[in-house]
């Protein structure tokens, strides 16, 4: 079953589709989409549960790097194809909705 194509879901899929082989972490995704990381998380969880997205923890020593490990997300092969098809058929977001999203100001 395909996930619900909300505006936020479309934005996340578009960001991941720009380079399907590239892995993005939560904050990077939020900077690319304009969503706050907490808003993006349940969407990524939903996409992962559907098998569209796969994720992994960054392999670092948090103490040596002095920052926590990042969780990287990328589209699966089947997920990329399904996402591209879903975005092509999804309803285009209205200008008003996009302006509202810009108002969320999620550029941490």
């Amino acid at each position, binding site marked *: 079953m395909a996930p619900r194509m909300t505006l936020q879901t479309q934005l996340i899929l578009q960001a991941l589709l720009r380079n399907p082989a590239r892995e993005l972490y939560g904050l990077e995704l939020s900077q690319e989409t304009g969503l706050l*990381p907490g*808003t993006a*998380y349940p969407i990524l*969880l939903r996409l992962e549960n559907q098998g569209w997205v796969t994720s992994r923890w960054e392999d670092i020593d948090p103490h040596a790097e002095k*920052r926590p490990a990042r969780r990287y997300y990328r589209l699966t092969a089947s997920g990329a194809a399904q996402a591209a098809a879903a975005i092509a058929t999804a309803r285009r977001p209205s200008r008003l909705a996009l302006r509202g999203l810009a108002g969320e100001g999620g550029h941490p």
Partner: protein
Amino acid sequence: MKPPPPSTGPARPSRRHAPATGRTPSSAGRPRDGTPRAEVALVYIYLFIIVICVTGSILSSAAVHIGFSGVAGFVGFMAYFRITSIIFVKINDNCSRRGSQGLSGIAEQEPGGPAPDEVLAVISPLARTGWRVMRAAAWLMPRTAGPRWLAEAASSLAEAPPTQWLRVMLSYLFTAPEVIVRSWAYYLARRIRPD
């Protein structure tokens, strides 16, 4: 007279003689994990709101369909609060059995996760309180989902500019009920249909 049953190994030590675990006993005014009472109260209020929202929405939608009223409505209302309190006790028991040391230990369970104490050391007192509330929300999620959610939030907080910490934290808190419901639904679906 019936003979005593044969011994099958070393006798199980009684609880009274159990070895010390190294934990400090709780002191007056503070729970065992050292969290101030006011913050624990805040956490429990938040948990209560989440459980009320989730179960309340399920029950109210059911009540609309059944047409609850009068005595049946009252009994249903009381049963709802009884069930809510049982859920709380069960969740608390599970958390303790996992060895997570209640609210404070859950973030350390994620193997790839961050060192939350280092994050906590740099964030503001207000954000620190928010972090405790987030730990409480993570506590309501299934075994793997909670620590992962918390670890990701800590990762985002650690790299976000200080002016954005509160907004990032609130974004996680506002979507916490959805993550709780979704992760439990996924967890139960996996339990029922493992493939």
